[in-house]
């Protein structure tokens, strides 16, 4: 009984002490989420000014961030916000700034250049944007001049579109035995290749829609031991174009974490397909696509949307082949900008360093998502 009382008194005292510590010396994150003004340092150095701006962007305190800018007279707060979150609906619109890095490039007594690398998180993973900022001394404070990227204006024009669209009327939930149904699209795996990576086994390949209708596709792979018993089953999820138009080919990437290729006797592949409503447009041309060798191997290029419709999100899938034409890796990237008509958007996809030497050629496809037009 006495022990219980002692414990209760101890817990109460510890709680009171921790509350007091938290109130007097709050953590940085707690301050941010409580909207505490004490978070911000005085902008007494160029680095502090950029750090303050970064914190305000992270908190989406747009008014404070805009007010702190030295060149705010050159644009409106709305322009500033849209420069960061996108003028059109895109991945940026719903992304949150997870963290940022500030790196001074050079400085004088009244002017400095500072690099701000912003690490965003979005529904399809992280992406990073970089801005080189001019920071100007104003009295005893430093202010950031924001290098605003203005909204791209597409010249007024009429772009005729008459791409085919497929709509599917699905059968109801009732029993349809002996009643006609519509055939699922016929798809075929045209290449498959397992690869051992440090993190496990990856099954790579390509899938072709052989049919005359669009298909919603996926690939399921089962690793089987040498005795034929199943080890693990996984499906392709992100590095695949799930909607395939007739005769279109997508890469696929099935990841088996912690698996070892030497334990695998065979692999059972199941291409899955279903009917899906789809449009044959827009056409995206991939221009100036280039394989840049190691170190820092990448595939770079530009996407050009040849239609009149804004593409809000583009998913770029890169299939990398060795000199025998076998798939050695699949890489992907989402554009954080919307693709405006006839406006090139660059992309830069990283290739794993150890595979870069094997890569001899590449093929790029782009899966697009659109919700509206130019306005």
């Amino acid at each position, binding site marked *: 009984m006495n022990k219980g009382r002692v414990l209760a008194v101890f817990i109460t005292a510890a709680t009171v002490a921790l509350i007091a510590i938290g109130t007097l010396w709050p953590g940085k994150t707690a301050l941010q989420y409580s909207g505490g003004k004490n978070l911000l340092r005085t902008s007494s150095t160029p680095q502090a000014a950029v750090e303050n701006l970064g914190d305000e962007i992270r908190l989406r305190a747009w008014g404070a961030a805009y007010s702190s800018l030295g060149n705010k007279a050159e644009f409106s707060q709305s322009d500033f916000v849209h420069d960061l979150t996108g003028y059109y609906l895109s991945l940026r619109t719903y992304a949150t700034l997870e963290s940022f890095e500030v790196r001074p490039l050079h400085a004088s007594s009244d002017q400095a250049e500072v690099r701000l690398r912003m690490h965003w998180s979005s529904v399809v993973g992280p992406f990073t944007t970089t801005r080189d900022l001019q920071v100007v001394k104003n009295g005893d404070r430093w202010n950031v001049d924001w290098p605003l990227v203005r909204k791209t204006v597409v010249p007024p024009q009429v772009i005729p579109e*008459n*791409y*085919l669209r*497929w709509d599917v009327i699905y059968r109801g939930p009732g029993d349809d*035995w*002996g009643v*006609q*149904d*519509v*055939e699922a699209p016929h798809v075929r795996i*045209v290449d498959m290749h397992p690869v051992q990576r440090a993190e496990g086994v990856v099954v790579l390949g390509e899938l*072709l*829609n*052989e*049919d*005359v*209708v*669009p298909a919603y596709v996926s690939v399921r792979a089962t690793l089987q031991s040498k005795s034929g018993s199943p080890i693990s089953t996984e499906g392709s999820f992100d590095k695949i174009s799930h909607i395939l*138009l*007739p*005769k*279109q*080919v997508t890469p696929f990437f099935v990841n088996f974490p912690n698996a070892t290729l030497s334990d695998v006797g065979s692999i059972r592949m199941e291409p899955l397909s279903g009917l899906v409503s789809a449009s*044959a*447009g827009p*056409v*995206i*041309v*991939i*221009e*100036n*696509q*280039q*394989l840049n060798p190691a170190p820092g191997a990448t595939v770079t*290029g530009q996407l050009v949307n*040849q239609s009149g419709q804004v593409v809000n999100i583009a998913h770029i899938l890169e299939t990398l082949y060795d000199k025998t034409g076998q798939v050695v890796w699949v890489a992907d990237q989402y554009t954080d900008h919307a693709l405006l008509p006839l406006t090139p958007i660059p992309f830069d996809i990283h290739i794993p360093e150890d595979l870069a030497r094997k890569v001899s050629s590449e*093929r*790029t*496809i*782009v899966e697009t998502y659109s919700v509206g037009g130019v306005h």
Partner: protein
Amino acid sequence: MVLASLSLASAQDSRMSLPTTVGAGSAFSIHSTGSGKAVLYIVGPGQALRRDVQLGESTYFPVGSLYNAGHYLVILVAGSSTDNGWVDVVPANTPANLSFLAKPSRLPIGLHNGISGTVYIFDVYHNLITKPTPVSFKLSNPSGSAQQRAVTAHEGVATTEMDSSEKEGFAKFEAQVDGISSTRVVEQVPGSPCGLTMIARPSGKGIQLATNPVRDCSGNAVPDGTIITFTESYDGAQSTADVPLKHGVAQVEIPAHPGATITVASGVVLGNEIHWQK
């Protein structure tokens, strides 16, 4: 049905007089001997009936009383005594419903035995008619040609296989049994592009690429929406575009690079190659 049934023998010695078989949905009677009131049950997985009866009289079951084919236990309960017997309900002779499964609903042209049709034959009460029954299958192509097969159904089912035609279009696939028919539509679609070719012409600072009308090896137009891939390779770089067919051709404008090699493909089918010198 009844391979051996001890209960049927006992029924014959009992106070009931039962028909051995009854046509599905047909009227029938069960006669009993003795006097007084009793309860008559007819029970099987297909149906369950109960009637209050007067012993010594016939109990009449009108048309449509017992209609699901099956093996039924008949029980007559009079006071503490019980009599049993069996009755078989057999499907009606006349087909009334067909379950016709034609697969696939869409397939490439020129496939031998690519289309299958399976028909199950039922009477008006959805009992499977298991006696041998002639079935005719007919696949009518849009060109007017037709394939026909005569098949005898065994155990209520008949099946056949047909070839898809060399011409694209919707074919009518019909199964017919004793004046009852069921029709399905089978779409025969063109095969992969064959002899894929493109032409290139200058267009401002770019190149306008366009395929010639894309056809399969039988001369059918490949459907619009089919993806054609153009690839331009130059100086270690390339430009590519996946373009859907529109009105039978695919076209796109790409940047011009002197010395570039331009190729065209659709799926795994390769087309011609152009070396751009301008």
